[in-house]
């Protein structure tokens, strides 16, 4: 299954664009450079192919960047206006989150 197909079905309303995103620890990525394969360690039978855009977005998910920042950076690299692509990026991030590959960064409190 392609992640991009999933993205068209994803609901982006739950994606908090100001929140930082982080890769889940149980996710496995096979990087084929211009494309890749993602799956969860506990469900290797459900593998998703990722195109070059998805892999570019994936590389930017580092636990610090927010969805908005990721969209901005992709626009910068692609030399397009962020408005043209941001919805697609949010859809993609929403689908990655729905599939359990990424999650919101949880706040840690210092005691």
């Amino acid at each position, binding site marked *: 299954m392609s992640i991009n197909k999933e993205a068209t079905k994803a609901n982006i309303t739950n994606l908090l664009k100001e929140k930082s995103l982080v890769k889940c620890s149980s996710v496995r990525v096979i990087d084929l*450079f211009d494309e890749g394969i993602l799956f969860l360690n506990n469900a290797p039978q459900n593998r998703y192919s990722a195109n070059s855009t998805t892999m570019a977005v994936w590389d930017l998910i580092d636990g610090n960047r927010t969805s908005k920042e990721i969209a901005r950076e992709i626009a910068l690299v692609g030399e397009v206006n962020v408005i043209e692509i941001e919805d697609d990026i949010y859809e993609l991030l929403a689908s990655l989150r729905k599939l359990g590959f990424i999650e919101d960064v949880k706040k840690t409190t210092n005691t």
Partner: protein
Amino acid sequence: MHEDNFILNAARLNLLEKNIAVLKKIPKQNIDWPLFEKKAFAHGVDTFIYYSLKNHNLSELIPPETYKKFQEHYYQVAYQNSVFLDEVNKLSAIIDDKIVLLKGMDLIQTLYPNIAIRSMVDIDILVDSEKDRDIWNKLKIHGFEEHDTEKDKDSWDKGITNGFAKSGLEVAKSSLHSTRLSNARYRHLPDLFNGRCHLQVHWNIFERPQFSVKTKMAWEKAIPINSDKKIFRLSNEFLLLHLCSHLYSHKHQFILLRMLCDINELILKQGSIIDWNEINEICTDSELKNIITTALTYAHILLNTPVPTDFVNEKLIIKKTNILDSLAKGNKRSSQFSNYLIILNSISKPADRIKYVFRTIIPVREWMNENYHTRSGIKLVMAYLKYWLFQLNTNIIKRGIRNVN
């Protein structure tokens, strides 16, 4: 014909202008696409074709459904190979000694740009020949089980196997047969399987026992590929020799185009640093030189691999129009008798040779019991008669009887 031409020009990492020109020139309506797919899959090069067409923006040269099938298999190979890589890491935790990765397991890490291009069915490792049994037994303690591949394949090996013992770990016609069988029949110990991958533990990278001294050289020259210096790869020269030798060993059964692609890509990538003088020195034995030259000539003729002229001899191979079909079918195999002579010649002591011949004619009782389900008395005598008749039929009259039972 067009299918072969398309495959031979597309099954490579980098397409040259002339390859692209040929691919574009082939009339697409004349290609039998189901046959094309079948051949590409059978030769293990569908992943190469997918990769090269995608990278050169030429995916429209094949039907979308074919492209999709190749793409799906490409992803499957990537996943399967990632499982193999995990298993290799586990192996290095089980085996305390140096291990050398062979064939696909090395190539996906050091030759190919990603792990989806080169499919494989098992992990091959070379270990110290002094410790091969210990390592094999240790792996069995750690979750691997002996896997009888003989049950799975209908190959000429069965003919040999029925004349000898199966694995060298079972009952043989004599202790000498057991050793010789393990020396000549196998370059590796019996296959292992742990539920996730098949593993072959090799002690020799060449097909002939007399070349095991070359394996020692390969062992010494192996290069570490990880920081703790436990996992190694063959030097480029020995890697090339091993790939050629492996291809030659399959010559009588089948040759996969993928085997030639490995040789082609290795020479294209490392050609400038491969020491051909060293290869020449290693190939002082004319039989080994012949093996290497045959494999390199195939690569040169089919894939236009740049091979030094002294390693090309077009007389060694038979050119046919449907070359991929003829590769897949293999050449006429050498007879069991000639294989027997090879084993016999590899025995150095004359007394052992006599014993070997004697025990071929009169195998030990345990072997007869095992193979003919006899115990003693007249049944045993009858079993010997049956055995001699079988040998007579197979090797002298050559009626092609395969099973002793």
